[in-house]
């Protein structure tokens, strides 16, 4: 359960001994006046970072997106993998009360409330909360609806924070068990938290952490350069290039943080023909895409999600552009002079750029791509069912979650319309396989299938870029965004 097996290549982590004290100001893009501190409502990075400071989950993702125990000290499954016994560690809320099984059950039931629409509800779906029960103050038995080998991933799900039982108001005086306790909060502007001395993992080094909202990237950079904040989240690759090694600020790149690709709908023409899909795999010049759309800040992809994560099929050969073969495949499929509309939108960094670059690449293989800009605000639901090919991205999550959310017949966000009973069966098999190596083999089979004929053209993995002041130490550089060590301000100190 640790991810620091080799010395970090990043910035100021582990240089010198931690120093106690000081206030760190961290600038994030925020959600405006509608922001809330309700951890179950968290959806933006800013929300997640604030929630992480105030609250804890039972588990969280390590650098390879495997679940690491947090409030849960340990977990154990029965043979059938459908009953899990979780033991809580001795932790206390900011009001001094112990974190108990009741709190956990309250939190999960709140998330699963059918009248509400909390984000983590879908993740908790496998748990039968009515049947699950406390087995003592610190023990819980989770009863699952079906065997789930990856149950700890559920505990680490985005937004599955533990709040005190009966908590309803989170904006005036929220109480959590996280490393920092609430001081003040103005939606859309700032949140100030102070060190919680009794934190179970040891008190943070910082006295105070202040989250400030700055939506514009240049504002975050300027504030950092001008000494108004010490930590700026989410910078442009170009900005990073401009300041990297200049000595003014430190640039931290979180590798493999976001998958970048195109999603082809496999249930409709022209992409219902796997030769066309393969031709598209071969059209992409991945390095050009990474250089152009990500400004070089990333690595090329191999049409599979989760490079570097647990279970990733790293042995498959790296695909490269092969226009002749692509043309030949298109010819075979009777799809010469193919015309397709590529949906894109300014909803994520690099989307419109990638679309333009791919259009030019496709033109060389005789495919005409018409790039269509969609609305930023409804993009994700628009592309779910309509169109044939679209720009796609995904934040870090375990490969298992990626598959269950996007690639099963009954997945709710199956943007590639990948409906294959045998593939679903493989997933079930993996979930009921207790032995890890066997399970790995099953995942490998699934990924091989996706590699040859899947609907995701994954051309790259973007770095997540942070900037910090030079005196900020202890920032973990290996953790993809949204994983445990990302935005962990309890480990950070000011030198």
């Amino acid at each position, binding site marked *: 359960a640790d991810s620091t097996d080799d010395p970090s290549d990043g910035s100021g982590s582990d240089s010198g001994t931690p120093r106690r004290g000081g206030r760190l100001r961290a600038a994030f893009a925020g959600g405006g006046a509608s922001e809330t501190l309700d951890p179950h409502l968290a959806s933006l990075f800013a929300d997640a970072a604030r929630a992480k400071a105030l609250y804890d989950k039972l588990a969280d993702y390590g650098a390879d997106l495997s679940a690491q125990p947090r409030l849960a000290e340990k977990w154990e499954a029965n043979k059938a993998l459908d009953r899990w016994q979780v033991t809580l560690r001795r932790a206390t809320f900011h009001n001094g009360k112990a974190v108990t099984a009741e709190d956990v059950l309250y939190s999960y039931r709140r998330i699963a409330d059918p009248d509400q629409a909390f984000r983590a509800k879908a993740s908790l779906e496998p748990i039968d909360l009515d049947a699950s029960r406390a087995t003592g103050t610190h023990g819980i038995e989770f009863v699952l609806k079906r065997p789930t080998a990856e149950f700890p991933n559920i505990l680490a799900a985005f937004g599955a924070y533990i709040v005190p039982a009966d908590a309803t108001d989170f904006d005036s005086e929220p109480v959590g068990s996280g490393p920092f306790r609430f001081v003040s909060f103005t939606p859309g502007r700032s949140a100030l938290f102070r060190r919680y001395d009794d934190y179970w993992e040891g008190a943070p080094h910082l006295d105070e952490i202040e989250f400030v909202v700055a939506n514009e990237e240049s504002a975050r950079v300027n504030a950092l350069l001008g000494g108004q904040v010490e930590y700026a989240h989410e910078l442009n690759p170009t900005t990073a290039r401009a300041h990297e090694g200049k000595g003014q600020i430190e640039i931290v790149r979180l590798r493999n943080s976001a998958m970048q690709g195109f999603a082809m709908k496999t249930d409709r023409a022209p992409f219902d023909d796997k030769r066309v899909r393969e031709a598209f795999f071969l059209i992409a010049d991945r390095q050009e895409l990474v*250089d152009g759309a990500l400004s070089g800040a990333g690595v090329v992809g191999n049409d599979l999600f989760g490079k570097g994560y647990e279970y990733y099929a790293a042995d498959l050969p790296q695909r490269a552009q092969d226009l002749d073969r692509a043309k030949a495949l298109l010819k075979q499929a009777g799809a010469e002079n193919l015309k397709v509309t590529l949906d894109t939108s*300014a909803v994520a960094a690099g989307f419109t750029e990638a679309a333009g670059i791919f259009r*030019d690449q496709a033109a060389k293989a005789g495919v005409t791509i018409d790039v269509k800009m969609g609305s930023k605000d409804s993009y994700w639901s628009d592309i779910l069912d309509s169109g044939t090919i679209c720009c796609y991205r995904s934040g870090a999550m375990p490969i298992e979650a990626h598959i269950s959310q996007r690639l099963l017949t009954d997945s709710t966000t199956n943007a590639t319309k990948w409906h294959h009973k045998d593939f679903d069966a493989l997933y079930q098999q993996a979930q009921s396989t207790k032995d890890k190596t066997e399970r790995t083999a099953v995942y490998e089979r699934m990924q091989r299938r996706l590699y040859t004929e899947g609907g995701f053209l994954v051309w790259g993995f973007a770095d997540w870029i942070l900037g910090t002041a030079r005196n900020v130490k202890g920032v973990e550089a290996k953790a993809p965004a949204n994983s445990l060590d990302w935005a962990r301000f309890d480990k950070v100190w000011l030198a």
Partner: protein
Amino acid sequence: MKGRSRFVLGAAVIGLPLVLALLGPLFAGEPGPRAVSFTLGDGHWLGTDFVGRDVWQQVLHGGRPVVVTALAATALAYLVSLPLGLISALTHRSWLEELLMRPLDVLLAVPSLLLILLVASVFEPGAVGLALLVALANIPDAARIVRAAAAEAASRPAVEALRMQGETWWRIAFGHVGRAILRTLAADAGIRLTGVLYLVATAAFLGVGVAPDAADWAVMVDRNRTGLFVQPWAVVVPALLIVTLTTGSNLLFDAALDRRSGSTRRAGNPRRPGDNRRNGEKVRQS
């Protein structure tokens, strides 16, 4: 002479961007392979842009749409607001004036960016639609300025005299009142042209009309801004071209205004020495 030199200056200033805009595409040639975005060197003498294209090529391609869309939108805005403003300045029926101007105030009350954002995402316009939309956003304001300037000119005795002569509305409105407010209009047009340029660019960024990676100077300025410190040329060159375009067109406007009034002032034939005598003699005879 002074007017001439200003004319030449204006023409020179506007010449560069205009020539680039009109002839640029002919010399641009085939796009080469993309490079890493925002880099300099490697045969790209103005560096690369946000998606690794050659900036110089983009500059060559990017003038035409700017010039065409912005000019079209500005022209369109005036095409509508000039008659509107003039009608309401020249009418004595206050209900007609209210009928024409008040609905425009409704548009005025919706911030233009919001208007474009909303209308655009509802109707998904193309380049033509965008020009229309941008023109629409400019009409209320232009019409008000026209009306305000024209109202004064329209109340002069000269206009009454024209009416007395049974002059057509058109002649009164465009021939006289229009001429009288030309300077104000020219000043406003210069500003408006620039405003329109960037509204088009903003719209492009929001995904309206122009493609977000279009070769278009205004779009280039907007989209390449992230690289300002790494590769300034991608922003500076198109921005300078826009600045010269608008400055030049305004200089030209001013010079043309001066020349016009100057030349008409000099229009009369030189006075012949005998003229006055004839005048005097005539009186004496009677």
